[in-house]
């Protein structure tokens, strides 16, 4: 039996049932991105009237925030759907069903996109209306930035899922915190030049660094840097490949250690 869209759809249906049955889950998708936007958006508005405006040209702060939310929410949306199976003790049922690991991952990717759409649509509308986010200025670049950041989020989500399979809920906190390693390194709010020399190689190994540099190039120079997009794409291919290999290895380690039967702490 090969890859089955029907099985991927079945799992997506399960997550849709869950979200539709629980208004706190639906609210959670929207409230944090909006809250974050309000905080940083008001800071930007204040800074625009009183200090160095070049930092905030073209709504760079809010644009950075929105792209950061795409990266972060892409991973969290993936990881939470996976964690729902662990929390509900349903993982054994799924692993014993004909669902293949890559179909499981595909369903988690689809749900990550669905969660992003629900969470970010009101946030983007607010950002455009009140905080100078210029979607038109980013243009087609926004679509490319979005896709590249989501794929990085998935790569991290895949590794986290593998670690939870292997180590149980003891690894759960990684789902909430691992992405913050990226925050200072991938230069969300400042250019790469700000980082000390010894840290730059780490930053340059992260696909999102090129996306945020590319965003600033669009906003300040009006140029979509294809070299940045190309570098981010190439790194993402490496990242998603490495994450898939890590997932398969962790799954096999979990089968060897018998941890799929227990699935606890």
């Amino acid at each position: 039996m090969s890859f089955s869209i029907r099985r991927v759809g079945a799992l997506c249906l399960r997550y849709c049932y869950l979200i539709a049955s629980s208004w706190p889950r639906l609210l959670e998708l929207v409230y944090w991105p909006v809250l974050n936007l309000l905080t940083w958006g008001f800071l930007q508005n204040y800074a625009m009237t009183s200090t160095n405006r070049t930092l905030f040209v073209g709504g760079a702060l809010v644009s950075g925030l929105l792209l950061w939310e795409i990266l972060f929410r892409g991973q969290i949306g993936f990881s939470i759907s996976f964690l729902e199976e662990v929390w509900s003790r349903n993982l054994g049922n799924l692993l014993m069903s004909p669902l293949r690991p890559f179909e499981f991952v595909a369903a988690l990717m689809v749900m990550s996109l669905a969660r992003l759409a629900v969470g970010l649509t009101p946030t983007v509308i607010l950002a455009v209306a009140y905080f100078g986010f210029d979607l038109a200025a980013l243009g087609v670049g926004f679509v490319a930035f979005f896709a590249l950041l989501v794929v990085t989020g998935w790569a991290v989500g895949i590794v986290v899922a593998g670690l939870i399979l292997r180590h149980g809920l003891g690894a759960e906190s990684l789902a909430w915190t691992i992405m913050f390693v990226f925050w200072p390194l991938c230069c969300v709010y400042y250019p790469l030049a700000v980082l000390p020399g010894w840290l730059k190689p780490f930053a340059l190994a992260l696909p999102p660094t090129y996306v945020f540099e590319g965003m600033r190039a669009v906003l300040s120079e009006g140029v979509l840097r294809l070299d940045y997009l190309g570098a981010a794409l190439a790194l993402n291919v490496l990242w998603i490949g490495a994450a898939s290999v890590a997932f398969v290895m962790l799954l096999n380690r979990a089968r060897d250690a018998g941890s799929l039967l227990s699935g606890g702490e």
Partner: protein
Amino acid sequence: MTQDATPAIEVRSLVKNYGEVRAVDGLSFAIPAGSTTALLGGNGAGKSTTIGMVMGLVLPTSGEVRVLGTDMITRRHDVLHRMNFESPYVDMPHRLTVRQNLRVFALLYGVSDVAARIAALAADLDLKDFIDRPSGKLSAGQKTRVALAKALINEPEVMLLDEPTASLDPDTADWIRSHLERYRDRKGAAILLASHNMGEVERLCDRVIMLKKGRIEDDAAPAELIRRYGRSNLEEVFLDVARGRREAAE
């Protein structure tokens, strides 16, 4: 009914080590279609690990496991749609209704007419009164019936059951056992179960494999074991084996 020479479940020289601990030590057995076999043993005897290896969720250190002729170590996805399982250690999503849960699993297992299959199971297992209720709001007996419905959703040829009637009142437990017997006889399914309920094993199983420290201590029909050990029921046989009173059988 399937009448194939290939055993439904075949285990050969199965070994599982967890670090220095040998949980399963050279098990070999074959289970034909249309039969019910129990794995019996005390805590740590290797029952759950053995069932985990038959499901393909635990990798053996060495040995072979085949289900319906398929190697479960390397090709388990070729046969998972023909088997199913029930265990008190897994659950179904609590917020989804019974119908929603069964629909998701029917789609996962490739059931062709999902609505008809759910309707048939609802009638068969008496789920109608709570089929649109969230699964988390059911009583223990209702949850077990729903778990059994999930285990039967694809009309499996092989069923693996871990404590299928744990924490149920005698009436509900008896009802579940009757249903399992009817299903096995109608479909020719092979059932492998782990249980601590000796009455259940005596009633349901044509064969009992007694495990101790990962090895097969004895293997026979329940009545034969009782006769062999000179006891009046299977519980006494279990105690003899667990406490090492093997001489009773000799």
